[in-house]
């Protein structure tokens, strides 16, 4: 910015410079210790953990994209059911917990805390 000695770019510039230096030092340290370029985490060998991690991340993305259209309740129940089943819960546990937990969270946040959670396709049922 003209006319100013310490403008808006000054601080981020300083931080970026520091990050650059640290990056070089870390790479140098890694080369010296001959550490491998990349390592595979241990959980990759467990099918249950793999499915769980993928479903967690994918499910959150799905919520971001679909919650407005489908509404909180449908998305919430679907995600809870998916996650619990993949992590190994039985259907007998999954179904009631998914339903009750979603409704409870909805009620608590919508009614008591007045957070406008999306109703989506259930708009007609809104209370």
């Amino acid at each position: 910015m003209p006319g100013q000695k310490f403008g808006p770019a000054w601080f981020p510039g300083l931080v970026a410079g520091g990050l650059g230096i640290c990056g070089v030092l870390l790479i140098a340290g890694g080369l010296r210790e001959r550490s491998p370029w990349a390592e595979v985490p241990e959980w990759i060998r467990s099918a249950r953990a793999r499915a769980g991690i993928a479903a967690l991340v994918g499910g959150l993305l799905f919520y971001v994209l679909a919650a407005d259209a489908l509404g909180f309740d449908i998305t919430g129940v679907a995600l809870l059911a998916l996650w619990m089943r993949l992590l190994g819960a039985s259907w007998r546990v999954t179904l009631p917990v998914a339903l009750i937990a979603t409704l409870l969270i909805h009620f608590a946040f919508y009614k008591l805390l007045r957070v406008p959670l999306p109703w989506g396709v259930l708009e007609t049922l809104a209370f």
Partner: protein
Amino acid sequence: MSGAVLSQAFWLVCDPYVLWVILASAVFGLFVGAVPGLTATMATALLVPVTFFMPPVPAIASIVTATAMAIFAGDIPSCLLRMPGTPASAAYTDEAYAMTKKGQGELALGSGLWFSILGGLFGTAVLIAAAPSLAEIALKFSSFEYFWLVVLGLASAVFLALGNPLKGVVSLLFGLLVASEGLDNPAGFPRFTFGIAELAGGLTLIPIMIGMFAVSEILRSVARIDEPWEMAQAKIGNVMHGMWGLTKRYPMQLLRGSAVGTAIGALPGAGADIAAWMSYAISKRFSREPEKFGTGHIEGIIEAGASNNSALAGAWIPALVFGIPGDSITAIVIGVLYIKGLNPGPTIFMNNAPAIYAVFMVFILANLLMLPLGLAAIRAAKQMLRAPREVLLPVILLFCIVGSFAINNSIFGVVLMLAFGLVGYVMEENGFPIAPAILGMVLGAMLEENFISSMIKADGSLLAFFERPIAGALGVLTLAVFSVPLIRRTMAIPRRRRQK
């Protein structure tokens, strides 16, 4: 402090609604603390969306109570599962488990509870005594002093943490970069907004913290879902038996642990987990029987157990007086204080005296409540630790989604939570500590503002940062923190112990 203020504060706490909130938060904190993988910081991050809609005193009270309970409850699975319930118990998990194996589980659990209470009360006493007088000094501070305080906080977050200091610096710089996002900078110039409206106001911290402290922790628990939890057999009868004897036998350990804990807590940036590591190491160093450490010896548990609970209260000193968090819990609390109109800073004791003294009373109350509720939690430990992870983790994640959404009623909060959850997970897995990044985000704006205005006042001369007496002293103290990794090496505190 006048009697009128105190009685006003007393009635604020005695409100049945506040007492109910305290009780509910206590139960919540005990549960979160006792389940490995759920931490006290996570409890705080999850509470924020709920406290959003409460009056100031119950909102703060819920966080104070839940964290105090959680730090104690972290000792329970240490004894029974050899897994710390929160990172603050990691320092003496092996010791506590060894005691259980020797048939002294009752004693280990009891001293976890008893010395947590005493340590917590010690930290609270220091907080009540020190914060108001410190505030009077702080009234005279200029941008130079604040600049050094912020740097001191950031430096202690990096150099007191366990692990590679270089990675701590990277984490810190990342946090500062995130903080410099948006319009809110001294020049009022939009930075890194890429023309996206949501980015112009800067990134909202609460969804970021829910991501980094809760979502990343859930991801880690899911990655470990195949590891079974094996409970050690322990007969649990009267756990308070023998506590008085231990108190008389180890008064020095109790005092030293509480004092070190409060100091580490009050030092901006370092919190309960580091306090416990330090106190455990000090205890071993000065013990008359250091050879017994590691074989199931109570001494280190007493000192470190008092230390981590006292650190909790100590961390509130810089948070209330300067708006500089003492640990990652108060990093979240500061945001809540602003939302509730209790802006931290030296004037808080004038403008909001009743509310602040009410918070102090809640500290005392929470530590006293810990005795009956903690005993109940120890009795219910086996049931709590049997809570099925495959049900618990998904429900907490759904709660995180709603919490991130609720701060701005915007789906962008969920995006932030996911993004920073992944960042936090990858960072921790590769040895980059998260606390410095959070501190950088909280303090970034303050650092830049005080740095730029100091530089403008001094016309670019760096020497001016040392010219005022307090600023100079703070500057020297900050530089001294840089030597801590060396001291640690000589004291042989492990450089890196991951929470398992």
